[in-house]
């Protein structure tokens, strides 16, 4: 039992760690200039093409500008193997809904044999994109689409000097699409897996093309296109049938699980008066796992911790669940003691904090697994304005929340009807969201890492209708 309980405690210590890390990376993000806002350690992070590759080039048949964002055809072309092809420095990132880049035709040169497309890593650098296997190209001189051989298929208009042309990969639909001057020209099925490089080609004298990997605004409204694609997917999802009142039950069990008892009471009261009245199926659903167990105690403990009254919360725990706080070196006690220390710092009782820390942290410093957390707490003393420091997150509401949630889970685990205490770690809602996230990640990994992950934050941030 003691071990099981500590598993719960350590789970919340890990949450704290995560919190500490994200606070640190948020501080770092304000100084870095990554466009996606992701750090390289993030699993969703991917390197993006930023410039043209000048190492793997087509010899003398392409002349890449000093900014590595423009390409010229320097000579008089002789035959079909004299194409000036340039790939981007990185393949198109795939862990997203859509990848897109654009070119601007500065000069269509003698014959306007310009192409935009995508090619695989081993592409022959003297051939137009589309002429070889695993390559796709939209050609300016004939407006044809080439995929895999030298014969093109009718596709769109031709393009020439002054035109902006774009190439994109729609990972959800598994399609390439091309644009001209901000308008979609057409799309074509993508039947190749593996990395693909954004590619441009020039093939007659004086041709000159500028490439935009997103460093400047696109002529094409990519955001609107993405929204449209997501709406298409959403329309399919909207057709799925789910049991009536399923959401209602999940919200109710969430309130029960976390001990938001007063909200629950009002929620139940008003749902009785709705039309049609919602039937309260107590016996099935998440409620069956004893979510209302000790809800009064859990509510009181949460309120005390949220107000920062840690001593009172500790007393109540000693009174109601003495065995939970028996082991003074347990993860739960550690959390509570740290919070007490944090509360002392918050109200400026620094001397008391030091005295408390000396006795308490001394005890825990022997537990090597919490060194990092003790250090974070102790660091609060080092700053004149701890709130603005790198450990300022400790003074936030969410730190109290972690402690309150840990206490809540521990109390839930004392329910004699619970067979597996792991069930106490998550609300029904959290289990559903974890399953949803995992399904998306697994689906993507079985699809060659193509497509976007489930992003709850993005969904939550679309509060306002478009």
């Amino acid at each position, binding site marked *: 039992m003691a071990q099981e309980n500590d598993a719960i405690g350590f789970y919340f210590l890990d949450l704290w760690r995560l919190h500490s890390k994200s606070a640190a990376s948020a501080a770092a993000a304000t100084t870095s200039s990554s466009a996606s806002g992701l750090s390289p350690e993030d699993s969703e992070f991917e390197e993006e093409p930023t410039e043209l590759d000048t190492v793997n080039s087509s010899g003398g048949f392409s002349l890449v500008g000093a900014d590595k964002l423009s390409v010229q055809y320097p000579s008089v072309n002789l035959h079909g193997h004299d194409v000036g092809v340039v790939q981007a420095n990185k393949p198109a990132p795939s862990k997203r809904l859509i990848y897109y880049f654009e070119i601007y035709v500065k000069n269509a040169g003698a014959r306007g044999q310009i192409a935009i497309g995508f090619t695989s890593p081993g592409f022959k650098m003297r051939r137009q994109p589309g002429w070889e296997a695993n390559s796709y190209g939209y050609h300016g001189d004939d407006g044809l689409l080439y995929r895999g051989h030298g014969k093109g298929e009718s596709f769109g208009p031709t393009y020439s000097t002054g035109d902006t042309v774009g190439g994109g990969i729609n990972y959800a639909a598994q399609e390439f699409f091309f644009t001209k001057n901000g308008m979609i020209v057409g799309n074509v099925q993508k039947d190749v897996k593996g990395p693909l490089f954004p590619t441009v080609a020039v093939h007659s004298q004086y041709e000159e093309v500028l490439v935009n990997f997103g460093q400047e605004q696109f002529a094409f409204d990519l955001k609107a296109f993405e929204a449209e694609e997501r709406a298409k997917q959403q329309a399919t999802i909207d057709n799925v049938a789910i049991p009536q009142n399923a959401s209602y039950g*999940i919200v109710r069990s969430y309130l029960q699980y976390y001990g938001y008892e007063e909200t629950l009471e*009002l929620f139940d009261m008003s749902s009785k008066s709705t039309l049609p009245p919602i039937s309260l199926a107590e016996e099935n659903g*998440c409620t069956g796992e004893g979510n209302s167990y000790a809800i009064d105690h859990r509510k009181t403990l949460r309120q005390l911790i949220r107000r920062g009254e840690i001593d009172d919360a500790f007393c109540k725990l000693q009174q109601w669940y003495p065995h939970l706080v028996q082991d003074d070196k347990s993860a739960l006690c550690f959390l509570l003691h740290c919070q007490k220390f944090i509360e002392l710092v918050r109200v400026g009782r620094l001397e008391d904090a030091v005295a408390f820390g000396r006795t308490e942290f001394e005890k825990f410093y022997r537990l090597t697994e919490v060194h990092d957390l003790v250090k974070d707490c102790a660091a609060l003393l080092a700053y004149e304005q701890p709130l603005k420091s790198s450990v300022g997150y400790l003074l936030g509401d969410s730190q109290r929340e972690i402690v309150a949630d840990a206490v809540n889970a521990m109390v839930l685990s004392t329910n004699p009807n619970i067979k597996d205490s792991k069930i106490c770690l998550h609300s029904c809602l959290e289990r*559903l969201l974890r399953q949803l996230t995992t399904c998306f990640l697994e689906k993507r990994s079985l699809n060659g890492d193509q497509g976007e992950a489930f992003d*709850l934050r993005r969904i939550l941030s679309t*509060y306002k*209708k478009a």
Partner: protein
Amino acid sequence: MSVFWFVLGRPADFESMASSKKVITREEWEKKLNDVKIRKEDMNKLVMNFLVTEGYVDAAEKFRLESGTEPDIDLATITDRMAVKKAVQCGNVEDAIEKVNDLNPEILDTNPQLFFHLQQQRLIELIRNGKVAEALEFAQEELAPRGEENKSFLEELERTVALLAFDDVKNCPVGDLLDISQRLKTASEVNAAILTSQSHEKDPKLPSLLKMLVWAQNSLDEKAAYPRINDVSTATLEDPAI
């Protein structure tokens, strides 16, 4: 040919199934689940969004205090919206129209269909209460002119007026109009229009996430056997069927 297929087909099918579908054990799956971190504040936001959109104003206010989650809309506007909804649900359509106009006159001005449906509901309530003369007058003066503007309105009007032609309205072909579900339909249409006018989504996010879960599981089924959640209300993992 078909017999041949029957004999040889099954084991071959079985083999191809086994080789193409990845099997993920419960242990492996739980490890993946544990790598997923869902933020508490995000779950709180989801719950708040549900309470607000569904109109649980008292619960939303309390949840704000208990969880420290800020609602994404002024809670006072929920009370007004719910009053309109309730009025329609109780059959007080005139009252509801007045309340919508107090809230924002543009809502009905810019939604002719909604306005028509409210007037239609008013007609239904008159018929329900046996006020035949009043119902006829209202249909001719208020609804017919709108029917001339729009063909689908006219059809709806004719269907509604047909209620007057039957003695036993409960069992007549258009009896569904008198059903409580018709009131609920109209009420939820008004509710959605008010939410839209407040630049808020008309549906809560949670049901659509549940749908997304069912959809994601179904499409993953094509490529893998893994522990599923078949009952969203219990959220228990069920072992893969292999």
